C-alpha cells in the first residue's frame, strides 16, 4: 500500500508543528535567560539571540545560600526517590505475583493514597512535625516526599513486574535458585528500565515540592530550590532575564535526567513487552 505524497507529508508536517509547540516554552526560557536585557524588553522579540550573556545566570546564582539549597534539593530528592523505589519494589512484587487475602484491599489503599491532596494537609503535617521537634530538618521532607510518590511508584512498578514473564522466574527456580535469588538475578535486571522510568515521576515531584518545605523549614540553610525560585520571582518581578535564568537552572537537571532516562526506559519497555 503506497501512500500518496500528501499522505506521507502531513504526518511529518504536523509533527514539526507539534515539536515547535511543545519545545518552544522551554526554548524561550533558555533564550530569554541568555539574552541581554535590551533584547528581552523590546517591542519586537528577538527569537534567535545572537548576543549571548551569562549575566542573568550570575545574578541568579548570586542568591545567599544558593549552593546550600542545591545540595538540600539534591539530597532530599535522591533519597526520597531511592527509598520509594526500594519499598515499592517489594510491595509491587507481592501485588503482581502473589495471591493472598486482602490483596485488593492493599491495591485500593494505594490507589486512594494517590489522591491525597498534600498541599491542603500542610498544617496537619506541620503540627505533627512541630510536635515531634523535627522542624528545620531535611528528614521530614525526605520521608514525606517519599510517601508522596510511593503509591504511584508501587502501582506502576507492579505493571513492570507483571510484564516479566513468569517462566523466566520459574526456570531460575528450577535451576535451584531460591525465590529471592531468582528475583535478584532474573527479574531485577529486567526491571531496570522500569525502575528508571518510575523514578522520573518521583524526581519531578520531589524536586518541585513547595508548600511543605515553606511551612516546615523557616531557616534558609534547610530550604530547597523551589523556594529560591519563587522568592526570586517576587523580588525581581519583571526582571525576566534573571527570572528565566533561575528557572533554567532549576529545570536543567530534570530535563537532562528525562532526556537521558526516557530513551532507555522506552526501549526497555517496548522490548520487554515484545519479548513477553
Amino acid at each position, binding site marked *: 500500500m503506497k501512500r500518496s505524497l500528501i499522505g506521507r507529508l502531513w504526518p511529518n508536517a504536523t509533527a514539526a508543528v507539534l515539536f515547535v509547540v511543545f519545545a518552544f516554552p522551554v526554548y524561550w526560557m533558555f533564550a530569554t535567560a541568555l539574552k541581554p536585557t535590551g533584547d528581552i524588553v523590546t517591542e519586537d522579540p528577538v527569537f534567535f539571540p545572537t548576543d549571548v550573556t551569562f549575566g542573568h545566570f550570575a545574578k541568579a546564582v548570586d542568591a545567599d545560600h544558593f549552593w546550600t539549597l542545591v545540595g538540600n534539593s539534591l539530597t532530599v530528592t535522591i533519597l526520597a526517590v531511592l527509598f520509594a523505589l526500594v519499598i515499592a519494589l517489594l510491595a509491587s512484587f507481592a501485588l503482581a505475583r502473589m495471591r493472598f487475602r486482602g490483596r485488593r484491599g492493599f491495591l485500593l489503599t494505594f490507589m486512594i493514597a494517590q489522591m491525597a491532596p498534600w498541599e491542603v494537609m500542610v498544617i496537619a503535617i*506541620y503540627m505533627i512535625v*512541630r510536635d515531634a*521537634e523535627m*522542624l528545620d530538618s531535611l528528614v521530614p521532607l525526605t520521608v514525606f516526599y517519599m510517601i508522596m510518590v510511593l503509591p504511584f511508584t508501587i502501582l506502576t512498578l507492579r505493571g513492570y513486574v507483571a510484564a516479566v514473564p513468569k517462566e523466566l522466574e520459574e526456570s531460575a527456580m528450577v535451576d535451584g535458585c531460591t525465590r529471592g535469588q531468582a528475583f535478584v538475578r532474573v527479574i531485577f535486571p529486567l526491571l531496570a528500565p522500569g525502575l528508571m522510568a518510575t523514578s522520573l515521576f518521583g524526581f519531578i515531584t520531589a524536586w518541585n515540592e513547595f508548600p511543605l518545605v*515553606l*511551612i516546615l523549614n*523557616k531557616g*534558609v540553610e534547610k530550604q530547597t530550590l523551589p523556594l529560591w525560585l519563587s*522568592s526570586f520571582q*517576587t*523580588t*525581581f*518581578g*519583571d*526582571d525576566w532575564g534573571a527570572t528565566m535564568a533561575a528557572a533554567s537552572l532549576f529545570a536543567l537537571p530534570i530535563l537532562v535526567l528525562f532526556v537521558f532516562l526516557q530513551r532507555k526506559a522506552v526501549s526497555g519497555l517496548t522490548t520487554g513487552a515484545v519479548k513477553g
Partner: protein
Amino acid sequence: MKRRLIAAIGVAGMVLTVAACGGDDGEGTGAGADGFKGQTLTVWAMDGSTPPNWTKDLTAAFEKKTGAKLKFETQKWEGIQQKITTALSESNPPDVIEVGNTQTPAYAATGGLADLSDLRKGVGKDWAENLNESAVYEGKQYAAPWYFANRVVIYNKKVWADAGIKETPKTRDEFFDALETIGKKTDAEPLYLPGQNWYFFDGLTIGQGADLVKKEGDKYVSNLGDPKVAKAMEIYKKYQSFSKAPKDKDEATPQQAEVFAKGNVGAFIGMGWEAGTAIAANKDIEKNIGYFTIPGETAGKPEGVFLGGSNFAVAAGSEKQELAKEFLNLALSDKFEGALAKENGVIPNKESLNSNLDGNEVAEAAAPAAAQGGTTPLIPEWAAVENTPNPIKTYMTAVLNGKSPAAAAKQVEAEINKRLAQQN
C-alpha cells in the same frame, strides 16, 4: 519549661552579679555581661528595615556588650503573617520579631508575644504616645515601637524638567496638571501606580476622614460602602489613570522602584527607602531622584497618609527573654534609634530624636503629612482582612475596571465581615 526557667534564673543571677561593672555604651538598663556567651539571639527584620551600616554597628555593639551573637534574618512581607504565627507556636521561635503596626494587635491578642511593660520604665519612658498605640493591648505593652514612615512622592527630576515643570505641586490639582503635562510633553509614563497600592489608598481614606470598619453591636463590619470611602477611591482612580501599571497588581509585583529605576517614569508613590532600591538597580538614577509631600486638596493641608510602622516584639516562647531585652535596650537606645532614623529617613519612636532627620530630603517630604497620618483600625480582628487575597485590593481593582464604588463595596462586604468575625 524547666529548661527555660533555669536559664532565666541563671541569667537573672548574672545580671545581678555583673551589673556593677556594666558597659556604658547605649542607654537603658545596660547590664553588660559575658553571661550570654555562646548564645545567639535571632531577630527577624523585614526586607528594607535594616540598613547595612546600622545593622553592622548594632551587631558589633550588641556582641561586645553581651558576649552573645546576633543574627538578623531578613523576611519578606509576602506570607509573613502565616510565618510569624507558626513560628510563635514553635518551641524554638525567633527571639525578636519585627511586626507591622497593623498586625500587632492581632498577635498581642494571641498570647504569643511577651509582656514588655517594664521597658516603659527605661528605654521606653518617652515613646511618643501616638506611635506606641498599636503596641499596647488591653493595657499591656506587647511590643516596642521601632520606626514609622509614611509615603511620599518620589519623582524623576529629569522627566519633570523635560516636561518643563519647575515647581513641585502644592495641591492635588496641581499634581494632576503636572502629570498631564508630563504625559503630553514627554514619552515617559507620568506616574507608576498599580491598581492595588492599598496603603496609598488607605491614606486617601484617612484624608477623607473615612473609616474602613464600623461597629455594629459588639461586632466590627465593613464600612467600604461609606460615600467618603468612595470619594477616596475616585481620587485613587484619577491618579491611576496616569499610569500604565497593571490594575490587578500591587506595588511589589513588580517592585515599583525597579520600574522607576529604568528612568522612564515621572513619579511613584512610595516609602523613602524605595529610592535606595531604585539606585541599587540603576546607579544613574540617583542624581535625578527628588521627593515631595503628597499634596492634598488645599496647599495648607497635605494628603492623608497611612502611617506605616514597625514594632519589635519578643516571642513569649523564646528562652532568651533577658537577652532579647538587652537587644531592645540597645537597638532602641537614642544612639541606634537615632542612627536608624538618619540612615533610613524614618520617623523615630520619640520626638527628641527627630533632629536626626534634619537635612534628610525624604524625611522633610514625609514630615508635613505625618501629622495627618493614621493607621488601619487597631483591633485584633483587622489583621485577617489583610490576608491574601485582600478583599480591599479586590475592591480597588473592581472600581478601576469600571465598577461603581458602591457595587464594588457590596461585592467584597461579605468577605470582609467574615474575616472580621473569624479570629479568636
